[in-house]
């Protein structure tokens, strides 16, 4: 082995070529991730308002976050919301992927239809849901009244559990298309021979899915779950549009609590401390997920 190779260079290019190639990426990460993160840590130790002077307050913002009942409740609510939506998104996404993974006639059309809600986006479908959930006039109530299930005057968005249920249903429908695409790609990568072997062994469809497909797309499932959980932890749009965190603070998510602290209370220092706690919490949950879902060699 040559000296150049020992110092990290390749056999054909000097080390500085490699450094030059990754420098833009490093600069990007430093400027847009590292420096803001360090600045955020600095801001979290101040009482920086959106306007006016500021001073260092030590750990006060963190103590405030830990003792603020609304922030604590928002973390709990976000965890519950995440628990509610994660499995249905995975299950529905998996089922849709099973339907569209083959190249049968109509598969492309179905893929498009199933993926459409994700393309339309949570913002748009939340606004549609806002209109359709109105008592007496919204389509949801009209249909339920027509079916004889309710009298059509249900105020979905002013009742915590009902609003949560409606929002969860909306999100499960809206984002499972992404899970479908991720899992479908992985499923299409499973060698046909494996399925043929399973078939020769007399495995049923269920057994094939359980013993062949799922183990072979384990990485894709893990990635889907992690994306879904992080997305749920950062939920904001749908709640901001549909419930604005109410009634009371029953549907206030942690990001909404941070937003309010920053842009309604105008307290950036305190909001930044809350954000950093959210970053830590999200990182912790993701790390646990990765440990649980890692490949067992």
């Amino acid at each position, binding site marked *: 082995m040559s000296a150049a190779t020992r110092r990290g260079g390749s056999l054909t290019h000097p080390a500085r070529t490699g450094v030059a190639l990754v420098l833009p990426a490093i600069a990007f990460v430093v400027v847009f991730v590292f420096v803001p993160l360090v600045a955020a840590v600095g801001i979290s130790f101040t009482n*920086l308002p959106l306007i006016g002077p500021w001073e260092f307050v030590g750990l006060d913002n963190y103590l405030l976050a830990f003792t603020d009942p609304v922030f604590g409740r928002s973390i709990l609510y976000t965890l519950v919301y995440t628990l509610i939506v994660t499995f249905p998104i995975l299950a529905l996404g998996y089922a849709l992927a099973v339907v569209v993974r083959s190249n049968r006639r109509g598969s492309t059309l179905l893929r498009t239809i199933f993926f459409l809600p994700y393309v339309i986006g949570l913002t748009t479908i939340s606004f549609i849901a806002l209109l359709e959930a*109105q008592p007496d006039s919204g389509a949801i109530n009209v249909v339920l009244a027509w079916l004889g299930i309710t009298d059509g005057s249900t105020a979905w968005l*002013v009742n915590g559990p009902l609003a949560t249920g409606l929002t969860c249903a909306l999100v499960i429908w809206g984002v499972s298309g992404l899970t479908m695409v991720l899992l479908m790609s992985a499923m299409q990568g499973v060698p046909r021979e494996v399925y043929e072997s399973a078939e020769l062994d007399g495995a049923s469809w269920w057994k094939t899915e359980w013993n062949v497909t799922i183990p072979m797309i384990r990485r894709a499932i893990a990635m889907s779950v992690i994306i879904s959980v992080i997305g749920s932890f950062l939920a904001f749009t749908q709640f901001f549009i549909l419930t*604005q965190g109410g009634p*009371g*603070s029953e549907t206030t998510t942690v990001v909404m609590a941070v937003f309010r602290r920053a842009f*309604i*209370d105008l307290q950036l220092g305190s909001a930044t401390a809350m954000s950093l706690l959210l970053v830590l919490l999200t990182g912790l949950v993701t790390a646990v997920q990765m440990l649980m879902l890692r490949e067992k060699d």
Partner: protein
Amino acid sequence: MLTRRGFLSAAAVASLAALAGCSGRLEPIDTTAASFRDGGQEGTIEVWCRADTLEGNQAMVEAFHAAQDRIRVRLTPIPNSQYVTKLATAIRGNRPPDLVDIDDIYSALFIYRDAFADLTPLIDALPFRDTLSPGHLALAQREGRFYGVPFLADNSVMWCNLELFDRAGVDVDEATGSFEGYLDAARAVAGLGGDVRGWWYPGNSSGFLGFVVQPHMWAADADMIQGAVGSQTGNVVGNEPARKTLELLHTMWAEDLVPQRAFSDDGALGPAEFLAGTVGMASCAYGNLVHNAEPGFLDGVEARLLVGPEGGRSFFDGGDNFAIPNGASRPEAAWEYVRFCLDLPQQQALPEGGYTPIRSDALTDDFRARFPHSVAPLEQIDAGYAPLSLSYNRIYNQPDGPWLEMFRRAVFSGEIDEAMSAAQPRYDQLLRQGDA
């Protein structure tokens, strides 16, 4: 060679330098300067207004452009819900507009952070100084100095449908003179049957409810926020006028005197049932009616100020103040525009856009004849009030604030004392945070 420790230190220093840069203070404006009295300014001024009052502002700008050609106004409407954030961000970024037309209830947020110019010398020099709305001025005041000047009023008053009152045999003054009068009138009107109800309120609109319900408490000299900015606390538990007001509104709900839609009404449709002629009384602003009423509907409507549980009268002295942010590039031209807007002809034309003048001397015989529905607040302009607090937005205008939570629990569930007890610590906490 840059070590890891050196790199981290440099990044930390750079971050703190950036943070320090955020504290840059805008240059205070000296409003005693002769340039404010000389006139003759030229150029284009940037004026921000809130979207809710765009119509009134646009009319002013057009009139100002027609009256002179030295100063042009570039008007930028900002959505109400984003106004505070956008203005704060512009000030933080050292790019404030020359003049802001700001919801008077939010004025203090900026005044107490030294963001607005001291306009006291200019206001004191106004020949009509004593006629200006005291409620607006109170929200622009800090330690005896004024950092904003009233521009237009948006007041909550009680509107009565005379046709329904006649059919129910109810007298307007008797009905609107006490809580008992309210209740008796609502029962009588609802007794007409069908879809007719006695009273209207939007039970799921935090800001709207703050606008139309609180004056009943203020009429009894009881605010739910007490103390001076910096050391404010909630005045919820033991606030008897507040308890009686919630009790009245709960009775209205429990006896089916309010449309069922009130439970989920977010105020987006305004007093729709009142405008449809199926509700006897509705508390709201003149602007809520004038733009949406069928032709001739307002001929059968009269307004009264809101009464307290033991008498007294009040109204929400809402609307806009003008303020000149420190650091504005053309403050003198901005003040010239303000002076134009405050002149009587412009003020007396405000009801055309759904607003009320902020000068009591606007109430002339001609004005009474042209705009009879704008008369009530001007006749008792001193009865107007709005709380001075840095936490008003958080407490009263946010759906997850303690005000709406308390209102809904008290009014729709009837748990009045429990709701007030639960609200007290939330008020205290938010006021403490806002004053920090």
